[in-house]
């Protein structure tokens, strides 16, 4: 084979990514760099935005075979964990191991605040329908208001996989902006007197109740909304690892190494789905706007409901804890504490706000379960069963 210098140079130049770089790829590389900047220098949810940004960068390098759609590519394998809804429930396993439901058990009525904050999900759903999305897409967008990344990804991958990337980016970006988004709404909806309300000390809870709680929640919620079982079941299993006291090693693994590993895989997979053809669309801008609306409405819903509860209880509840009903654990609870302390530095709301905060995790999972019950495709489950059967038969046929 003869090659002239010119032929060789042309062939080498043709094999580089530069030769295939499009305007869309370039724009997405810029978007990836912005995400990396926000994660590293602005500290916006760096544990998630950094791998998402880098996944996006890798996916948009031409000829690298790193996009989620590049069959056989590395990130395509990671993406299977999102596509088959494996990774979000595993994140929930870790979240459960990290969560103390004690404040919620001590004041169970705060579960209502977790429900009230879901109002943001449904107002956004209606708003999304107004902007031209169908009901499945609108549900996936609305769940951003639950302020729960794994739930957003879970629902998006189930109901609107083509919108997964903008939904995930909007969910995590706004979660990182909770300390900026929530305080003005909280101050606007409450009076100085309400913000100064001091709440009674929480009662201690028996360890046996803490152990029974995850089992009861799993039975009650999963019987009522079977679609939510992968998320809620894993959340409660993680919590049972924590509270049972007999699985120290499993608890330690799930709350540290497992959740970290799964977060890396999940974030890279989401980043790899951010290609020019899926992200650079008018829908992305609409989703970003609707995501902000979802967070604002969720915050307002929680605060207004807490004001009602405060009136009904004779001023025993500080309405500021209502904003913690959006998930975003523990940042939303910290915001309640901060805004309360601004009014009265001796007012400690953190533990009281943790109740609605963890209730928000359950609330957003239940909201997801409602969407799955209404719009979930039962044929997907049969596909999963078919895939599982194929895997088992393949393993069985391997030589021993």
């Amino acid at each position, binding site marked *: 084979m003869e090659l002239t210098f010119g032929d060789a140079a042309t062939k080498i130049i043709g094999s580089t990514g530069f030769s295939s770089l499009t305007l869309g790829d370039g724009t997405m590389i810029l978007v990836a760099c912005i995400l990396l900047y926000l994660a590293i220098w602005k500290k916006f949810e760096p544990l998630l935005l950094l791998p998402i940004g880098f996944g996006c960068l890798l996916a948009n390098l031409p000829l690298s075979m790193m996009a989620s759609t590049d069959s056989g590519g590395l990130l395509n394998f990671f993406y299977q964990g999102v596509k088959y809804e494996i990774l979000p429930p595993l994140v929930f396993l870790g979240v459960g191991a990290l969560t103390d439901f004690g404040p919620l*058990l001590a004041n169970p009525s705060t579960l209502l605040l977790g429900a009230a904050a879901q109002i943001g999900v449904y107002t956004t759903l209606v708003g999304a329908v107004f902007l031209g999305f169908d009901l499945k897409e609108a549900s996936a967008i609305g769940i951003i208001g639950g302020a729960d990344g794994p739930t957003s990804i879970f629902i998006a991958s189930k109901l609107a996989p083509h919108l997964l990337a903008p939904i995930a980016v909007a969910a995590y970006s706004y979660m990182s902006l909770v300390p900026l988004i929530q305080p003005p709404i909280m101050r606007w909806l409450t009076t100085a007197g309400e913000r100064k309300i001091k709440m009674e000390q929480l009662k201690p809870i028996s360890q046996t109740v803490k152990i029974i709680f995850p089992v009861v929640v799993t039975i009650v919620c999963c019987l009522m909304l079977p679609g939510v079982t992968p998320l809620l079941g894993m959340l409660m299993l993680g919590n049972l690892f924590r509270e049972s006291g007999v699985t120290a090693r499993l608890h330690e693994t799930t709350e540290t190494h497992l959740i970290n590993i799964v977060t890396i895989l999940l974030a890279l997979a989401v980043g790899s789905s951010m290609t020019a053809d899926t992200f650079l669309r008018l829908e992305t801008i609409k989703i970003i706007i609707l995501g902000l609306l979802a967070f604002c409405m969720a915050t307002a819903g929680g605060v207004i409901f807490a004001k009602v509860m405060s009136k009904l209880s004779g001023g025993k509840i500080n309405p500021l804890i209502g904003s913690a009903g959006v998930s975003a654990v523990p940042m939303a609870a910290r915001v309640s504490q901060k805004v309360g302390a601004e009014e009265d530095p001796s007012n400690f709301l953190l533990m009281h706000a943790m109740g609605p905060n963890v209730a928000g995790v359950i609330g957003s999972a239940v909201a997801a379960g409602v969407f799955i019950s209404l719009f979930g495709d039962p044929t997907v489950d049969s596909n999963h069963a078919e895939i599982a059967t194929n895997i088992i038969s393949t393993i069985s046929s391997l030589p021993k």
Partner: protein
Amino acid sequence: MDSIVLTSLIVSLIAILVIFTVLIVLIYTIKLLVRLIPYEEPPAQKITSETLPKTSPPSVSPDIISAITAVMATHLGKSPQEFHITQINPK
């Protein structure tokens, strides 16, 4: 009104009702659990001269301050937020 918007409103209403129903069921389940299995104070450890440290610690640890705060709150019948410990002099 467009039928899809009307459907979305109905979906939202039903979904909110379902969420509140599920969580209210949970609230009463928790209340029942807490009533059936009340919290019991762990048995207090007997403090003897042998269990006490031979030498006094160089500074008072946060755990000790928390314990003193809790005891003071119970004794005074006040919330821990209502008073502030400024100085502890170990003898």
